[in-house]
């Protein structure tokens, strides 16, 4: 039940886009059609489900203050947490590269759907942001970290597919010249964010 709460919370309440503005760059750039945005959303979810638990383990057994105690008690006072950023981003870049190779070898059809998006993902703020939030909140086990990754990914997918659908319809509406394109997408995202705030008070 705990896990289910965490899942719902990370999809709706702590939505990556509407509550934290993470991954906005690709969100605005790739949301012109529903099909491509769904592809990118799936790729992000996929990478989050893999990277967040891995980074959780790295944080627990390598980076957190006193985390090295499992090697020998002498290392219990070592604090490597200043290495967090460089290690997390290196792990994310490496995992994205490995995933790309695995997908290309075993499921070419999935590769042709996700392939072009995968390299983009290494520098998507949502991925690194999710790992940093995971570290900040201090989850108690790998399962929670994985569920948090899955929920955040699905929340991101929901947001990008939503805005893509709205933008597809928007092509037929009359928008002031200066607002066309990026401007109106910003304002719509803001309005969607206000709508999503309705979930904020929910306690499960």
């Amino acid at each position: 039940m705990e896990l289910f709460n965490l899942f719902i919370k990370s999809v709706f309440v702590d939505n990556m886009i509407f509550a934290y503005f993470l991954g906005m760059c690709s969100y605005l750039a790739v949301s012109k059609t529903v099909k491509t945005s769904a592809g990118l959303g799936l790729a992000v979810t996929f990478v989050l489900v893999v990277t967040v638990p891995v980074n959780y383990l790295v944080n627990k057994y390598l980076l957190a203050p006193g985390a090295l105690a499992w090697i020998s008690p002498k290392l219990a006072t070592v604090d490597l947490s200043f290495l967090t950023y460089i290690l997390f981003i290196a792990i994310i870049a490496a995992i994205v590269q490995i995933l790309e190779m695995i997908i290309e070898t075993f499921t070419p059809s999935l590769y042709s759907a996700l392939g072009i998006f995968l390299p983009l993902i290494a520098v998507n703020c949502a991925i690194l942001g999710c790992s940093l939030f995971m570290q900040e909140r201090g989850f108690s086990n790998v399962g929670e970290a994985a569920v948090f990754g899955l929920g955040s990914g699905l929340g991101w997918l929901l947001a990008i597919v939503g805005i893509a659908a709205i933008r597809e319809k928007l092509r037929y509406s009359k928008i002031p010249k200066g607002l066309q394109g990026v401007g109106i997408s910003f304002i719509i995202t803001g309005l969607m964010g206000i709508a999503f705030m309705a979930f904020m008070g929910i306690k499960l």
Partner: protein
Amino acid sequence: MPNVKKLIIEPLRKTNPVTVLVLGICSCLAVTAQLKPALVMGASVTVVTAFSNLIISLLRKGIPSRIRIIVQLVVVATLVILIDQFLKAFAYNVSKQLSVYVGLIITNCIIMGRLEAFALSHGSWESFLDGLGNGLGYSLILVIVAFFRELFGSGTLLGYPIIPSSFYEAGYQNNGLMILPPMALIVVGIIIWIQRTRNPEMQENNQK
């Protein structure tokens, strides 16, 4: 030196990374509820962009193009760690307020975008200036958004009350909506609208 001027001034207006190229939005919006964190964030991003541009431009002949993304990420991450430690030491409260967004400078698209588009093909001095200009362009938008959000949201600037108390006695109220995250998006949307109405050549055409 017209070149220097061009490299620094253009990103402030014509090629502004936030409103024109739409890069680096993520961190830009989350830190703008108040002016102070926005200023700190802008300064940090400017420093990181300028120096990462300089370093990558010096290294550009030695980096194999297949692994350049990882090399760039490592350089940027190192700079961000330095900034993070610096903020923790000298401005602890602000660094707490910025929380994960300092770390997210690493994946700020402006930095990667400038590295890919400029530093890999230009000399070091030019790259440094280009990074500086783009960082300043980013900070400019950040400060404008934060100015309006703090002024209308809490009636203060940098923590000092600006709106006189006689206004409040007359029934004026702070607009709580401005502090909420979605308003940042709407404010940026309005800035883009004003900028593009004044410069019609920037307008996009949506109706194909």
